[in-house]
């Protein structure tokens, strides 16, 4: 496809400075500069470090995106930017840059929800989103089940985590196992050589009253504590910790709950399409088990490639292009950031 609006998207909600450009549903470039290495030694994202890195990377990343896509800024039809949720100081760098671009170029500006962008990005890989779509968003900051009748204006939250996000649980368990930050990819790798039924870790909110009251909610903090305790007991007994088995069994507990609830949410709402998004959607076991269970339930599964699941600018551009296409109202120049922007709110 060569038609559709030419939209540049900016994402700075956490530690990735992302700039993507799409034409309609075609991805032209996805440029990302990450400060993750600077955070690794702290075991988590340090907001001020992230904000400083965004300021350094912002303009060079815009320039790189334009160069690689062969696009001149003057040719852009619209600018889209993550207005929330995310780290307040980090969001401000991207939003200020986006406003300045829109003002200088005379283009409309769209302040958008980060989570809606995680859903919208899949159009550049797999075409228009079925309406409605069920979305399971799992990242370091979020774990949500979303019913999405229209990603440009109607997103409903069916459930979310009551404590830790799924990615956060991966990162914390990795720490317990002495694996580097961010832990998700390392657990994923360690788990490949482990036995996923070696240890029966708890599945949060899946039985009894909990299940009734929190049918589509998640809880990973009990699981994380159970893993830490299990490892501690081993160490106290002077035994070696079977890292691969712990990783595989922990991962299985997370992925089992996520996929079980996602498939059940589809059935309960008569939805035939399930989309995975967010950094944890890069997890190989989550992809495999989701595929298995969707096949059994007759649900079509969509998963963007890993690079589009983690935070990036292309997803913002992709949502921006859909907002332009559907004639949604642009944001004003005094658009604020909202670090706790609710998922139901697609535009700021």
């Amino acid at each position, binding site marked *: 496809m060569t038609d559709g609006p030419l939209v540049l998207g900016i994402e700075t909600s956490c530690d990735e400075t992302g700039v993507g450009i799409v034409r309609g549903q075609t991805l032209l470039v996805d440029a990302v500069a990450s400060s993750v290495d600077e955070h690794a030694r702290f075991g988590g994202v340090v907001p001020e470090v992230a904000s400083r890195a965004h300021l350094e990377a912002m303009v060079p990343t815009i320039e790189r995106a334009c160069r690689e896509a062969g696009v001149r800024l003057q040719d852009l039809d619209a600018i889209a930017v993550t207005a929330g949720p995310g780290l307040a100081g980090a969001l401000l760098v991207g939003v200020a840059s986006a*406003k300045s671009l829109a003002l200088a170029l005379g283009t409309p500006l769209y302040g958008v929800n980060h989570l809606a962008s995680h859903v919208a990005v899949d159009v550049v890989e797999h075409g228009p989103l079925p309406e409605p779509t069920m979305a399971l968003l799992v990242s370091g900051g979020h774990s949500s089940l979303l019913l999405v009748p229209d990603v440009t204006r109607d997103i409903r939250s069916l459930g979310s985590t009551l404590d830790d996000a799924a990615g956060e649980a991966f990162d914390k368990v990795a720490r317990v196992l002495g694996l580097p930050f961010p832990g998700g990819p390392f657990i994923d790798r360690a788990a490949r050589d482990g036995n996923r039924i070696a240890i029966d870790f708890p599945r949060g909110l899946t039985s009894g009253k909990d299940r009734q009251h929190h049918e589509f909610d998640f809880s990973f903090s009990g699981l994380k504590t159970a893993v830490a305790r299990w490892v501690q007991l081993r160490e106290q007994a002077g035994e070696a910790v079977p890292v691969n088995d712990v990783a595989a069994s922990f991962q299985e507990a997370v992925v089992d709950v996520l996929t079980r609830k996602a498939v059940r949410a589809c059935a309960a709402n008569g939805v035939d399409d399930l989309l995975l998004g967010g950094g944890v959607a890069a997890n190989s076991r989550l992809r495999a088990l989701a595929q298995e269970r969707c096949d059994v339930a007759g649900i079509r599964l969509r998963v963007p490639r890993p690079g589009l699941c983690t935070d990036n600018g292309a997803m913002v551009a992709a949502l921006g292009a859909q907002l332009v296409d559907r004639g949604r109202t642009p944001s004003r120049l005094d658009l604020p950031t909202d670090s706790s922007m609710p998922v139901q709110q697609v535009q700021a």
Partner: protein
Amino acid sequence: MSDVLLLAIDTSTSAITVALHDGSSVLAEATTLGARGHAEHLAPGIRTVLDRAGVTPTDVTHVAVGLGPGPFTGLRVGIVTARTFALAVGARVHGLCSLDVLAHQGVVSGAVSGGELLVATDARRKEVYWSRYAVEPAQPGGIRRIGDPTVSRPADLDADVVALPTVGRGPQLYPDVWTAGILSPGELRSAPVLPGSSEGFGLIDVSAAALAELVIQRLAAGDPVDEHEPFYLRRPDAVPSASSAIARSALG
């Protein structure tokens, strides 16, 4: 200087301030006071000065920005706005120390006419950002900075430094340190920032009109005014946003 249209921005103090300068005078100025809401007010402020001066963004040839020191979040909004605007319209970016601008304001307002002056601004956390200046009419802007900008507790400043005529919010915040009161609060608040400037908000916050004037003078004197990096003066607080305390305590 001819064919110059300079857009000046500063967000290092509680003023979100924007001005347009054509190389000989200030064409328009827009300032919002209030420590919060930098991101909200800056872009509309730029639009306002462009409209008032009847020019379009692509007419802008130079963008000047105050690099602080100042509260980090607001500071970054100003700097990234300036850099991005310059990229979009193909203009050059000039950055300079925001304390220099306040020193320049102290001189052009007539509040200080010789000797030395001190600039002391709010660094929060019970500290001030400060720098000393020699008042030298032959220098661009009439000032020469003595040493690098610094962040300190007011009580740690030498007595002879605090005794200098002082501009910036410091004396207002720490009256027990700045007891001499060489400039009265009234003077600080009402001094005209520039001859002919419509916005007389004094010597407490940075004025983009004064920033523009200082950059134009430095450029005319052959100084490239080519600094770009913010004056942070402090290391980041190394506190990760998601705590790992539980996992660690469970490990003992």
